[in-house]
């Protein structure tokens, strides 16, 4: 069983409890305007060019007419010749066995720290069979599992992964439908219904709200009310992703947004009873 991922990050400390390995799935049904992993959106591999590293050696142009164009097939040949190591391909096909082989290597660290495997993305549930196969393999290896999800998936997919998922890190980006479509490109009907379903199922859920000034900050009360009785973590906006947008040659819609101060978030977290860990999204 294969899927498309763009990274495996070991010693991950902020995607669930303890020391974890996070597998980043490529492809997402949402297009959040503040997305901090823009390379995770497309389901296909993509070329990234870090222009500040480019030494203008011209080798990429020699071998490819589309070295700087959007018509790139992401074959990766230009990466090998690049003298400045300014290029990379985000996204590759990976097998469940291969990923699990890497994941189990840190099992001792998970055991000592209460950590495990986190599937993130992109949207893990957008590659449902692959996601389920990874979860099952991890549970067979007796490893704690978490999914970071936007919740945009068919209910039967949620039902299928439920028995193999120890923790859902569930994003709620807003309650108002119109605003949600404007901010993410999709309606939140399915997302909220899935959230309710998980809340009713007694699953272990940590809700998370990205807090983006001028985009969804006014919905904080509504999100808190919706997730009543469950922990809610606030993830304040940051602009660290701007370099990735440049590398993908795409505009960063929220580039002009000023990140909220730690004090402001701390105050909101207290006011609304939210979790806040100052590491950002």
């Amino acid at each position, binding site marked *: 069983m294969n899927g498309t991922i763009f990274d495996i*990050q*070991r*010693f*991950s*400390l*902020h*995607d669930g409890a*303890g*020391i974890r390995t*996070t597998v980043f799935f490529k492809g997402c049904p949402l297009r959040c305007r503040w997305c901090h992993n823009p390379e995770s959106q497309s389901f296909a591999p993509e070329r990234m060019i870090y222009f500040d590293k480019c030494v203008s050696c011209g080798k990429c142009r020699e071998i490819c007419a589309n070295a700087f164009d959007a018509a790139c097939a992401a074959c990766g040949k230009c990466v*090998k*010749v690049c*003298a400045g190591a300014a290029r990379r391909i985000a996204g590759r096909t990976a097998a469940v066995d291969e990923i699990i082989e*890497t994941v189990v*290597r*840190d099992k*001792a*660290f998970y*055991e*000592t*720290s209460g950590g495990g495997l986190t599937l993130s993305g992109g949207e893990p549930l957008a590659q449902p069979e692959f996601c389920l196969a990874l979860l099952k393999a991890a549970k067979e290896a007796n490893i704690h599992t978490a999914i970071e999800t936007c919740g945009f998936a068919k209910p039967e997919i949620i039902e299928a992964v439920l028995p193999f998922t120890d923790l859902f890190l569930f994003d709620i980006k807003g309650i108002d439908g119109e605003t949600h479509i404007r901010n993410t490109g999709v309606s939140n009907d399915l997302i909220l219904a899935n959230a309710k379903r998980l809340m009713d199922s007694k699953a272990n859920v940590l809700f998370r709200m990205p807090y983006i000034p001028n985009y969804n900050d006014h919905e904080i009360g509504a999100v808190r009310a919706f997730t009543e009785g469950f922990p809610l973590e606030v993830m304040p906006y940051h602009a660290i992703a701007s370099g990735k947008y440049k590398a993908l040659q795409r505009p960063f819609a929220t580039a002009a947004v000023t990140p909220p101060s730690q004090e402001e978030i701390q105050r909101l977290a207290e006011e609304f009873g939210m979790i806040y*860990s*100052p*590491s*950002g999204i």
Partner: protein
Amino acid sequence: MNIQELEPFACGYAAAESHDLEYKIACGFRSFAEHIPLTIDPSAWFVGPVGSMDRLAFRYERASGIRADENRYRAEREAHPELRAALDRLMDRFFALETPRIISKIRSPEQETMERCKAAWAAGGGHSNPDYELLLRVGTNGVRERIELFSRIHTDRQTFYDSLLLCVEALETIADRYKALALAMLKTAEGEDKAILGRLASALDNVPRHQPRDFFEACEMFWLIFTFADIDSPGLFDYALGRYYEISDEADRYACLSKLWELFHQTRTWNLCIGGSDEFGNDRSCALSYDVLKIAREKKYNTPNITMRVHPNTPDALWQAAVETLATGIGMPAIYNDECVCPALEALGIPPSDSHLYCMNGCNQIDIFGKSHMGLEDGEISVAKALEFALFNGVCQYSGERLGLETGDPTGFDTFEKLYDAFLRQVDYLLDYVTETSNKAQALFAAYAPNPWKSIMIQGCIEKGLDYKNRGPIYGHGQILTEGLPDAVDSLYALKTLVYDTGKVTIGDFIAALNRDFEGDEALLAEIKAVEKYGNDCDGPDRLNAAVTDHIYRYAQTKETFRGGRFGVGCSTFERAANYGRHLGALPNGKKKFAPLLADSIGPTPGNDKTGPTAALNSVLKANQYLATSGNVLQLKFSKSQFATPAGMNAYLTLAKTYFRLGGQTLQINVVSKEELLDAKRHPERHENLIVRVGGFSEYFNRLEPDLQDNIIARTEVELS
């Protein structure tokens, strides 16, 4: 000023002209104790002749024996015209006797070349951990009884025992002189000074002849012993002094510790060790262990070098205190795993009761507290140089001379096994050289630099009737360090992959590329870059590293030391790795000619560890840590932001605990932000207090060479997602 006050050691030594060397040295110590000018600074609380010996023109040094400092001698001649004739007479005698001069005459030309080309060096000295625990417990009265008892057994060693008795007498003499001085000063002293002088006089009425009655007395006796001849490593500090700490008033004992810490800071005090278990797994930590960490956090000094020993029963609170101390950024404590170190020592024949008394002598080298002379400066080999020898038929690419073995034309190595075999033969050749040379040096030190004072302080000497340098200590194992092992492994693995596994390059073409320093070889460099590197949990390079490590450690252990033990190996590169690289040609891992080596002790090379700390730890753990009887240092560097929260601290605590549970030996953790380091390089004046951990010790960042500063900046900094 008379000549005895000016140069008391030399006068005592010269007066005993016709006696044995050790007896003359002991007479020097006694004369030193009788005549050296003493002062008391009541605000320092504790007294000892700190650095007095070092300031003499004619002196005894721990590392090099008898020394005649010519600059000092000339300065004294200028300053004391009336003593010129006397000084000249001493110079005439001492110049010829100087230990380093005698030893340098016996050095071979080969030794000079091997050192100049940074292939290997060897010596025979080192630090030690004096057994003040026993001396405090029985007092000089008890020690004198021991000496007299054994002198009746070894009747042929009377001069040796007489020398020791002279040293005991010297210590008592200096204590008595301090007491008399304190009493004299007491007459005119006022306020707090008066109180301290009174306490001091009262303490010196009891110590060093008898066991201290509280922590103040214990500190005074400790400091007196510690500063008498030279400053060295305090070793198992909480084990030795914890009992006095327990029985003393809480506020007063902490004040004493604080004063002692100031004294440590003013002197170059080496390694202080806390924690650990006894041979039954019982935790040894006590109130003093916690307060050592507390005072280290408060004072933030770079000395002494603090080591904490851990084991499965180390209390969580002590772990927590250690992590909080690390979070201040002082780079201490270094953490050592009893469950790894003790079995390694036991494999050398040290029984569990003694293996559990290990501590550090100096930086990272493992020593048995008060019972060993296990070297430290025994020797070092460049594993990267061994590879260079294998690739150039024994010819050093720095000097162009043939320094290694002739293992054959490398283009004839048609399999990786042949290349690997040539490499191991070169490694063995360097180990043979370094162990033989060290043994010669050890023998020379035994013959020309006996140390009767240390023979009192290290167990075994009194019992055997043999000097500290001459097989007296119970344990006399040696320690060899490796340099550039990770660079050599990455180089070997690049050759294996590109030449022998995939056939992308021939060995001849690869060597040609090394010869032209990769000029115009961008394609080859890109291929090298793409090869898996040690430190990323990739079995290929990691297992190769394990195999090379295993070979070196086991081969060295077959070699016996002059001191009556075997040579152990460790890897702690300190700041030296960069310099080793400057004496090497281009390496198959892509290192340019004369560029610094990347290796950072046993860790992955900086910039090549891309998979995070768990992967790096897994890589390191594939090599057998249980063979390392010297320090096998792994450094991790984390940014301050990661340590900032309790959850962050907890993650690092877990990381360390897991590493040790899996059999890791040593962790050194730096907590500092990259921005802070970069800024410190640009504006050193703004970062006077910035301390980083460099190999074996913590050092002020501003005092490091620019190369090393860059290396530290580049070194494993794990960034957040």
